[in-house]
């Protein structure tokens, strides 16, 4: 009985999960394509009065994605199904999936809108990472409604995470599923909602779908067309930010929609685990017990107030109008969505500074928002205070507590390393684009910050408020920054380690 345990090479072990994810993407392409065919036939919407043929790029890309997926399955056919991925393989798989998403997602844009390859990859990566940064200056003129919808669907898939979806719909992944999940949703997460990762993923996706349905319904009820309501509903719950209009939300000129969207964005920035806890215990009081949520709400309140005051003059002294603009700006920046109703180029310096701070902080852990995350900021602040205290009274034991529970020092180290990596990436990527494009430093830093925090619109932009004027190499650099930010650094950086590839 010779049971030698040699592990198949990593490329073969990965091939199956990666292939299956590509099949899921193919399914979504078909679904979106057919939906658009339906819109074309029914012309439910003034804007979507497009011809059925415009859904072609999506339906054409589906077999390409499916074929790639089948090649993956074929390549991994010799790997026994019972073989569980370890952490290392899961990290590589997730990074490979996200790299492929950027390429497969770009194909409809290349076929349908003649977009150059680097631009299309930038756009698709921006879609899947829910950044919402675009290279299209004229969306309504360049993109057909099906392509607009595809950008929104990319947001939506990337928002809760395509790997999380994959884990939810393939229940027999076992521990591989857990490692995959953690590689896509690392750090302080919503994990632990349920003991099994399949159940956790299912819970998250159900909540996500449910909230999306509500959002689309609300937007439609407030007067958006069905097509626009879907596009913006997808873009909101995923905190993405791609709009169907060049003027973004301002194009609808509806204060009601702006208020509703702001609230929906803020909801998308809350830890989904809290929603689950509320749904399970049927008590709202659980929400307030979360320190992270209290701080999140506090940030929203304080920043809204400060912005309202600072922009009072900009809006002609009308308090309600400036409150609306301030609230929307806070929601869109803090949750890194990137929808806009005004141009922050006109902002007074105080408002601009606040916007940048909010982009850095981001939403709650376990939400679809980007940034450093409120939970991390909370731990960082408390750890910093404890450290200062320690310097004065070294003999006293200083405990960092969140929600009344002590934070293990391993987590404090994790969070501080995260902050360092975030800042280091900000510096390095800014440097790269300063060198390659000769851009002014604030412009470069603003663009990189926008990508790392998956925000979208960049502060201190030059020329038009989009990424079209950057060079091809800069666009690919930004794409890398978006994936790094979306996967929260560790997973992506791990695959650069030599020991990940050695056995």
């Amino acid at each position, binding site marked *: 009985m010779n049971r030698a345990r040699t592990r198949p090479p990593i490329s073969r072990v990965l091939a199956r999960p990666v292939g299956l994810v590509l099949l899921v993407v193919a399914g979504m392409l078909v679904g979106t394509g057919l939906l658009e065919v339906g819109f074309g036939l029914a012309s439910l919407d003034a804007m979507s009065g497009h011809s059925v043929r415009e859904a072609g790029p999506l339906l054409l890309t589906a077999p390409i994605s499916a074929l790639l997926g089948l090649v993956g399955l074929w390549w991994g056919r010799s790997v026994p199904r019972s073989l*569980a991925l370890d952490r290392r393989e899961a990290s590589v798989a997730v990074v490979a999936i996200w790299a492929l998403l950027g390429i497969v997602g770009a194909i409809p844009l290349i076929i349908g809108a003649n977009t150059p390859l680097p631009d299309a990859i930038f756009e698709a990566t921006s879609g899947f990472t829910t950044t919402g940064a675009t290279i299209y200056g004229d969306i309504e003129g360049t993109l057909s409604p099906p392509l607009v919808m595809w950008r929104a669907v990319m947001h939506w898939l990337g928002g809760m995470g395509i790997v999380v979806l994959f884990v939810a719909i393939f*229940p027999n992944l*076992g*521990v591989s*599923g857990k490692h995959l999940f953690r590689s896509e949703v690392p750090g302080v997460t919503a994990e632990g909602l*349920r*003991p*099994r*990762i399949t159940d956790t993923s299912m819970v998250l996706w159900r909540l996500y779908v449910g909230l999306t349905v509500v959002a689309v319904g609300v937007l439609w009820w407030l007067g958006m067309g069905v097509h626009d309501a879907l596009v913006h509903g997808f873009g909101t719950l995923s905190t993405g930010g791609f709009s169907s209009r060049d003027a973004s939300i301002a194009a609808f000129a509806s204060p009601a929609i702006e208020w509703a969207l702001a609230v929906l964005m803020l909801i998308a920035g809350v830890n989904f685990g809290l929603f689950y806890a509320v749904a399970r215990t049927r008590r709202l009081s659980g929400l307030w017990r979360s320190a992270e949520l209290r701080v999140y709400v506090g940030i929203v309140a304080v920043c809204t107030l400060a912005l309202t005051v600072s922009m009072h003059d900009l809006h002609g002294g009308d308090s309600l109008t400036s409150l609306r603009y301030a609230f929307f700006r806070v929601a869109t920046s803090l949750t890194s969505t990137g929808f806009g109703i005004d141009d922050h180029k006109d902002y007074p310096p105080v408002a601009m500074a606040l916007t940048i701070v909010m982009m850095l902080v981001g939403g709650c852990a376990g939400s679809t928002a980007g940034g450093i995350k409120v939970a991390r900021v909370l731990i960082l602040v408390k750890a910093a205070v404890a450290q200062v205290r320690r310097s004065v009274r070294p003999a006293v034991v200083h405990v960092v507590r969140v929600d009344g529970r002590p934070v293990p020092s391993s987590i404090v180290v994790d969070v501080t390393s995260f902050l360092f990596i975030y800042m280091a990436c900000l510096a390095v990527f800014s440097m790269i684009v300063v060198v390659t494009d000769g851009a002014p430093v604030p412009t470069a830093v603003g663009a990189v910050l926008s990508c790392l925090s998956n925000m979208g619109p960049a502060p201190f932009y030059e020329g038009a408020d989009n990424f079209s004027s950057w060079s091809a190499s800069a666009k690919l650099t930004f794409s890398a920054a978006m994936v790094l930010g979306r996967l929260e650094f560790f997973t992506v950086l791990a695959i650069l380690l030599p020991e990940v590839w050695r056995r």
Partner: protein
Amino acid sequence: MYVVVVGLGQVGLAVVRALEQQGHEVVAIDRDRAALARAEDHHDVATLEGYGASARVLRQAGCARADLIVAVTRHDETNLVAALTARHLGTKRCVARVQGADWMDIGGEDGLAMGLLGVDAVFNPRVLAAGELARIARSSGALEVLELAEGRVEVVQVELAAGARVAGRPLVDLRLPHGMRVAAFVRAGLLSVPGGADVLRPGDRVFLVGLPSVLRDTLSWFADTRHAGRVAIIGGGVVGSSLARALQGTGVSVTLFERDREVAEALAPDLPEATVVIGDGTDLELLEEHGVARADLLFGVTADEQVNLMGALVGRRVGARRTGIIVSRSEYEGIYQQLGIDIVISPRQMAADVILRHCRGVEVRNLHALAGGQADLVELTPVDGARALGRPLMELDVPRGVLICAIIRRDGVVVPSGRDVIEPGDGVIVLSTAAARRAAGRLFGTRRL
């Protein structure tokens, strides 16, 4: 099912692995961070660091809504307190393991007490193992004897002897009597469920299932069935002393080797019929001197697996006819058998079996893992409306790797042929390979066996 497992030792891990495979939700509690990390790395379960008997930790683990708690830490009292606390918090069923000598008497020879101190099941796997070894010693020629359906059905494992009359012919030609059949055989470490064309060869390990009386009569067709008159036991711990006690009054002459003088002297008064020898059970001369050459069975049952193995190998060299050992890791059963050990019993596997019996659906009553977990033997009642009910078995299209071994009725047990029908209310005993578990479950209306 939502299960809380307290203690991630070997049994804990085995239970976690089995529960995960069956698709249950598992939360594991341990104090050892390394053990938790290991479980995290290899299993899709949630983990919690803390003292398993603390109400706070148990509440955090979700004991209020748990269906089952399994307490298997190293400390017997912790296990009992954890089970009781969980029960108090609202856990529906609780199972605790004890293994110390102080808890030897619970549940008598079975080592399984139901309802002790308000815990649904308290069991001592070492006593369970001793009971199993005693059954083997009392039966003639068997390597394993499992009782099912309150003793109305037995499963016996034998090694096919060189000159056995059933060897070398296809199973259909064997004309085995009614009331028994060949359920499975293990060749080169791999278990298979045989069809009529399969041929048994000497050296195969064969699982026979049937009525105890029929099996007793046909055992000689398969194996050397000389009665075990002399049994040597190495180790006077929980297993050794329980085993020796179980063999009292059965006419078997027992020689027990125990290295520790105090333990040996404490044992001897309890075992008037046995000879208790103070000395190292791996000492060749000592074994020879005390007649192991004429022993029909030698069991190595100390707490140390390596001593057991050495003792059994030495005993074999001295001349013991058959040898058996208890081990901590059932995965190595195949390796031990290659080394010439006939009987390998893992108390930990038995513990896992006992626990898993509590995790199966309500309709599943009993479970035994065969051949290191390659197949399960399950006693169950098909759910109303299950596909298996109401039609002859030959029309059932029973999946590969599944065998319906017996139909249990109030008025008797049937070892079925193709014409027999499972009626509503009947119990069945099913053998299923690990791969066929799900298909077997579908047949009887449970999600999986």
